[in-house]
């Protein structure tokens, strides 16, 4: 009997007529799938180690490699699916917690796909964004409920309102928190540069701010998470905004663990921890055991930054997310980021990633409605996160009430990520979620920056087209405008929570 009962996920086939024995695949695979047999002068492949990242196939000069899902079938069973059987084999073998990278991969309904947008016909001309102005400019931060003016003796008015600090976005899309450490230097660098080029923001995650990225700090949101890695007054003051991370959609309620192998000299210096030690983020902030403690941290950060920066609180979408968001706003948050259960991660227990939290669509609708009911919606901006796969998802989120969105996975995919979900191994063949110098050098920062900028540009153009179709020429007129959404194949309860009508109504 074999020691290892888990059959490979993929079957890798090499076409001997095409293979020229160049060994590119051997050099490209960090998982050691491909080995060059010196004696036979042949490349052998071990499918069992293949994660399906396509790196070898993508770089094979003769297209000799094909990768298919393994077809070794269990007896069909709707309850005990192959994934569940394999998970038990793995745990029976190792006795540990199973890990995953990226977001929830289960086939639960994606509500974005059950919502459709409106367009103008006859009574309302659609607007062509190629000929008419189309405004996506978005300001994030606390707004007063009214404008105050000074009037001089002649009745001439001037501005009296002093606005709370705001983030100005040229397009309502930001890069979500991904720490240097979980992703490579070049990946972090590319995100910062693309954010600057597009007039938006990238979030450093909890990994601190590498000294090389400081020139881009005006387009960076720095994170204060439970591990407080890299946090000092300079870190807070150099950034555009500060985000307190309470939760992450992929793993609500638990902390983080950057394995020691990823903590090289640079990561160590940036995180302010010893080299080659595990970076452990506790599950809670140990100075936040309730809402009043959050208020203290928010105002601690505001004091430390002389009230010049918006403070964001990021929470994961859990059952009572609306009440928590309301509490965060009343505690002084200028921006509330909500991360839905399909949000990504570098590493999370699979069981938590796949079973804890609620979809961003419902969480966002509930939070927006709750803040409006309480009359405090203008006091904070809402940023939605948790798997935006296209510009359509983004514009639907804005119509549901989001001020802007965070994209994480889409940005990684733009840089070359193939969603193999093995970020936690540190062996990312695409040079993104790794610190191995042999691998990180594969990601060219100039190319990655360009690809990220292209993605933002493409999505922004698409958003303008859709807005114009609705006869709207400024994004603020769509924000929370649920009249422009209709639901398809949703229950009355879902429609009610989403606050939208059914298609045909």
């Amino acid at each position, binding site marked *: 009997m074999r020691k290892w009962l888990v059959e490979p996920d993929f079957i890798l086939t090499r076409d001997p007529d095409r293979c020229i024995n160049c060994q590119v695949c051997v050099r490209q695979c960090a998982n050691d799938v491909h080995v060059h047999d010196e004696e036979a002068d042949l490349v052998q492949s071990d499918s069992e180690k293949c994660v399906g990242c396509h790196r070898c196939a993508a770089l094979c000069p003769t297209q000799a490699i094909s990768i298919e899902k393994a077809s070794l079938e269990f007896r069909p069973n709707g309850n005990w699916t192959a994934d569940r059987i394999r998970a038990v084999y793995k745990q029976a073998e190792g006795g540990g917690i199973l890990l995953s990278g990226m977001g929830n991969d289960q086939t639960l309904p994606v509500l974005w796909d059950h919502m459709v947008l409106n367009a*103008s016909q*006859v*009574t*309302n*001309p659609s*607007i062509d964004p190629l000929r*008419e*102005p189309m*405004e996506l*400019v978005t*300001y994030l931060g606390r*707004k*007063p*409920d*009214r*404008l105050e*003016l000074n009037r001089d003796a002649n*009745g001439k*008015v*001037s*501005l009296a*309102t002093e*606005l709370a600090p*705001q983030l100005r976005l040229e397009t309502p899309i930001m890069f979500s928190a991904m720490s240097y450490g979980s992703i490579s230097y070049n990946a972090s660098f590319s995100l910062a540069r693309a954010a600057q080029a597009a007039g938006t923001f990238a979030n450093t995650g909890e990994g601190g701010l590498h000294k090389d990225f400081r020139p881009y700090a005006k387009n960076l949101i720095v994170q204060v998470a439970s591990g407080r890695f890299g946090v000092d007054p300079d870190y807070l003051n150099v950034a555009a905004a500060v985000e307190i991370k309470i939760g992450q959609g992929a793993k609500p309620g638990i902390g983080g663990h950057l394995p020691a192998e990823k903590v090289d000299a640079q990561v160590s210096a940036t995180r302010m921890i010893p080299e080659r030690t595990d970076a452990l983020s506790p599950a809670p902030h140990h100075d936040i055991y309730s809402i009043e403690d959050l208020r203290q941290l928010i105002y601690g950060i505001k004091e430390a930054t002389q009230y010049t920066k918006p403070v964001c609180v990021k929470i994961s979408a859990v059952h009572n997310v609306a009440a928590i968001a309301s509490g965060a706003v009343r505690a002084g948050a200028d921006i509330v980021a909500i991360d839905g259960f399909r949000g990504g991660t570098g590493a999370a227990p699979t069981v938590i990633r796949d079973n804890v939290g609620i979809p961003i669509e419902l969480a966002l609708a509930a939070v927006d409605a709750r803040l*409006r009911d309480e*009359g405090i*919606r*203008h006091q904070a901006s809402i940023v939605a996160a948790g798997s935006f796969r296209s510009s359509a998802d983004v514009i639907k989120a804005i119509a549901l009430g989001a001020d802007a969105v965070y994209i994480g996975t889409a940005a990684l995919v733009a840089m070359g990520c193939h969603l193999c979900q093995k970020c936690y191994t540190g062996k990312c063949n695409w040079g993104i979620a790794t610190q191995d110098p042999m691998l990180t050098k594969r990601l060219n920062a100039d190319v990655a920056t360009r690809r990220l900028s292209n993605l933002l540009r493409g999505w922004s153009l698409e958003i303008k087209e859709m807005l114009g179709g*609705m*006869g*709207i*020429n*400024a994004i*603020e*007129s*769509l*924000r*929370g*405008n*649920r*009249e*422009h959404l209709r639901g398809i194949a949703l229950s009355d309860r879902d429609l009610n929570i989403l606050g939208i009508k059914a298609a045909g109504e």
Partner: protein
Amino acid sequence: MDDAQTIPDDQWRPDRHQKSQRDEKDQSGCAICGLLNEDGSLVDGGLIIRAIANMHDRSNGLGGGFAAYGIYPQWKSWYAFHLMFDHDAARRQTESYLETVFQVAHQEAIPTAHLEVIRQRPILVRYFLLPKEELRARHYDLTDDDIVMMNVMHINKTIDGAFVFSSGRNMGCFKGVGYPEDIGRFYRLDEYQAHLWTAHGRFPTNTTGWWGGAHPFGILDWAVVHNGEVSSYGKNRSYLANFGYQCTMHTDTEVIGYLFDLLVRKHHLPIEMACQAVAPPLWSRIEQMPPAERQLLQTLRIIYGGALLNGPFSIVVSHAGGLIGLNDRIKLRPMVAARRGASLYVASEEAALRLMCPSPDLIWRPAGGVPVIGRLQSQPQEVSVA
């Protein structure tokens, strides 16, 4: 007693004037016009009727209406409520409610003419009201205007078959289902003298005619006639809800009236700035402004993003202090304006303008987002708080 038995004729009438079965958003094309004598001199309704009739083809007979200012000088400090009732039961219920919260100085049927073409008219009554002292004492934090608005919303929302379509002082809205020139004759508007008139002819595409759904939309002394569609309606409605405005009239025009009430009456913005909030300059233009102006406009736009009216519109907003003509930012609906002496005229088409004012001193086509503002000279420059 069973209501239906008391009003037998309602049983066989198709209730075209009832407020049921309506869409929330009113999609329509339309004709609008307005005239203001800034010196306060009065003119009867004949002229504005002829002007709106000159744009007959812009409406389809499913709604017409007028607003007139200065028409009730004998009751000028009292709120003039114009109500339409579907049946006597609604009238009785409304009147007993009005008596609990208001002093009623006078009430009478709104005079109408019998016109072959105007059919299925509701019961039309006007009341001259002020909040009772005990109500003022209970709502010590509210102005009379606030109390009146609260009660208008209450009646329109809760009393079935009753609808307040005008609630300002020394002004009134007159509207119904029909071509506007017929509605004008029906209400005998040539018998009223006003310094400010606006008119509307409606071409709805998705609603059957409902008397309350005709324009102007009136709340307090605001009256709005509107040609266009508010694509930002959902946003504006939820934004206004933050400030206690409940949209109960199922027409997108309603949000325009509430926005001006919020911006001018409650937030004390100058009229020009209120117009810049609902039709702001482009960000790219704001960037190019001198620093003080740039900062002001930036702040205005950041705070009042929810007040931006998107979609094609031309509107005439009238109030005690004067008249505002405004187009959407990229001018997707027509509007022309003219001046002669102390008189200001606006209309959808030059044909109507020339009819009101054959030899203007000045005639122009206002650019998108650039307001035409007329001010009654006897009034303070801005609407004061009651």
